[in-house]
């Protein structure tokens, strides 16, 4: 196969994997709990900064993973307990509160690390030969990790007892309570999983993007648009959404410039907004 085509295909795969793994945390929280966590992008940022801290201290890159998961997990627990839980019946207020939180987290990052861009080294340098094309190793690692995480989470949710109980709780919370499912505990755990996934996403992309306090904004918007286009119901939807959004951005950016790409993503999102009369929740 033509090396150029292989490289293009891998690039596309890389783009979809990145968008999907970053949107996953938001999808979990929005899809299962109905909460739009506007601080999602900042949790990705926190994950990225954890990676920076790990690298700055000379630790192995892998150490960033437990660090990010720890910080985002604790943060997620606190946020669900005190900010989100009292507001489950008022989705608009959760939007506002999480937006305020995103502001707070951004300012904290600014205070701790300054406004400048931080650049990280790729933990696995060099290239690997794939079907005749040389492709950056780290990107392959990212694709692999994304596939494992997405696949693993999906399988766990579909097969495990807890996953089934969470599914039950999401579809019919009244009956779930009547059966003794600990709805509050599961909701908290789900939120924490969502924030940890965001942190993990941040660790993964940190070597590839400039790490700075405002990086989260792009990611919350992209993740949200992926969910608008792909729907919340399934992994397939998440991947479709990622493909469409990523595709539109790449193609239009190549034709005009990055602003054009951004605009096309927005136009696509508005179009899907019209097409989904009941909003994101495609479940009947």
């Amino acid at each position, binding site marked *: 196969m033509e090396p150029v085509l292989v490289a293009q295909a891998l690039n596309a795969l890389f783009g979809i994997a990145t968008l999907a793994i970053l949107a996953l945390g938001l999808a979990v929280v929005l899809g299962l709990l109905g909460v739009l966590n506007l601080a999602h992008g900042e949790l990705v940022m926190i994950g990225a900064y954890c990676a920076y801290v790990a690298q700055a201290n000379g630790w192995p890159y892998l150490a960033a993973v437990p660090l990010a998961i720890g910080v985002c997990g604790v943060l997620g627990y606190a946020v669900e307990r005190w900010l989100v839980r009292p507001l489950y019946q008022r989705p608009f207020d959760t939007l*506002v509160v999480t937006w305020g939180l995103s502001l707070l987290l951004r300012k904290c990052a600014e205070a701790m690390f300054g406004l400048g861009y931080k650049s990280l080294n790729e933990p696995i340098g060099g290239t690997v030969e794939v079907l005749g094309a040389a492709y950056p190793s780290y990107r392959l690692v990212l694709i692999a990790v994304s596939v494992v995480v997405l696949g693993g989470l999906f399988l766990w949710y579909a097969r495990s007892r807890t996953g089934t109980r969470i599914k039950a709780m999401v579809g019919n919370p009244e009956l779930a309570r009547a059966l003794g499912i600990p709805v509050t505990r599961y909701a908290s755990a789900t939120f924490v999983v969502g924030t940890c996934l965001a942190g993990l996403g941040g660790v993964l992309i940190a070597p590839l993007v400039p790490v700075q306090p405002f990086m989260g904004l792009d990611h919350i918007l992209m993740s949200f648009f992926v969910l608008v286009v792909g729907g919340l119901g399934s992994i397939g939807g998440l991947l479709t959404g990622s493909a469409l959004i990523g595709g539109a951005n790449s193609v239009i950016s190549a034709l005009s410039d990055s602003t054009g790409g*951004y605009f096309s993503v927005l136009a696509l999102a508005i179009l899907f907004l019209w097409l989904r009369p009941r909003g994101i929740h495609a479940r009947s």
Partner: protein
Amino acid sequence: MRAADLRRRGVPLAARGGVAVAAVLLLPFAVGDFWAYQLGLLYLYAIAALGVGLCWGRAGFLPLGQGLFFGLAAYLSGLALIAFEQSPWLLVLIPLAACVPGVLAFAIGVLVFRRRGESGPYFSMITLALALLAYQLANNWESVTGGFNGLKGIPGLPGLDSYTAAYFVAAVALIAATLGTGWLYRAPLGVLWAALAHNERRVVMFGFDTNRLKAVAFGASGLLAGIGGALYAPQQGLVTPQLCGFVLSADLVIWAAVGGRARLLGPVLGAIVIGALTSGLRDRIQFWEIGIAIVFILVVLLFPQGLVGVFAPLERWWGRGTRRAAPIAAPARPAVSGDARLEIDAIAVQLGDVRILDRLSLAFERPGIYCVIGPNGAGKTSTFDMLTGELPAQAGRVSFDGRAIDRMQTHRIVRLGIGRKFQIPSVFAHLAIADNVAIALWSGRARPLQLLRPRLRRWSSALLDELQLRYPFLADAERTASQLSHGERQILELAMALLGEPRLLLLDEPCAGLSPHETAAVIDVIRWASERRGATIVVIEHDMSLVRKLADHVFVLHNGSLIAEGSVAAIQANEAVQAIYVGAEK
């Protein structure tokens, strides 16, 4: 405002206003040039913050990207000032620069607010994305916007050179914007915004296109941000992409919240106070910005009334002595000929796997009182939802007066002369009774431009007078509807449905939760409405004793279709009907 109105509203309002205006205009002489300059800038931000308060505090949706409109107006104004320096064309171009964002905001509102259902999160995200897009555009389009370094060397407004002059321009603009926004809040438009923020479904059920109303609100906020931006360019002399971006948009939301988004002056106070504190203390106190973010979260969670709330007792004391002006007779509803015939023909509604309405066919041929009964899940409320356009049908036709209404939007169907009372009393709980009643009167009577005239709030009608005689609490104008008991709320909603003077009235369990005394009163009103107005009234009821008292004709629904109809006696003698209530052996 006529002098008589002024007198009635009491001296305090005029005095309040006069003192405030004088204080604002005399301020620069007290605080010196530096602060005059700072305040001049803060006033422009305050105008934009007013817009956020309008959308968020009044109309109930959150714009996260107002910087787009502020920056757009600033760039347009800056370009005009550079190109047409000192020319009289500026008299037209600067206001135009302020209006363009307003029109753009309205257009975006029309695009985004389309479907029924919560568009809140989408709207916020889209405005955020647009602001970031604008920032990118401003950054990249160097030839026009000057790129990252911005538009430089913008001359001031012709003839106004000193800091003090710039201050006065900003101050006058702020006062004008505040008065204008206050007028919008007092107009029926403002009341409708407040209503739809909490109960949009009900507003639609009075025949108002809420999507259009929200787009107008957003357009107004765009205009306000535009005014601020248009005056920013000559005042600062420099326009950078930062204006379009995220930071200013975020600050506007914070100022509106901390100041008190629900009140007119809240965002203004927030912008000036917090803005001034921030510029003064940002460098001296290390965690100032973090502190503000925490304050914002606390305000949203615990103190939504904001800074203005602190002054509320003072305001109440000062506001004493204002009385409502005399009522004005509302114009008559445009007369429509025709007997209000409603025909439902083989309607099928399916949601997922559940068949809610199964080839349902009913006809209401002449005016009178009809009752719809049936066991739980028979589809009675769903039939009402389908009639008012809230539940789309997959097959069949519905015609009202010969006109097909099965594909129409709810607010258009209502305008044809259909009124509805919901199963759970659905009034505007946080609005005064008088405003609840006024909204019902505007339904079908007020033309769109009339919604800008505050005098419409004084509308009254002969029907209202009669209802107020029967139910004195309806005349208790200033009382908030949330303070009413359940029974009173049922009656208020019934009254509101009647005031629209519909030709077809759909009542869903009008007596639910009422005491026997209240029930008798409601039955009385329903009979009176039927006789006096000649309307067709359809009532869903469970209680057979009520059905016996009311119904001229009864329809029995079961599993989404009609299984029997006739007089009450005929229904009671019908074995098939009895069987579905008692359960079958077969």
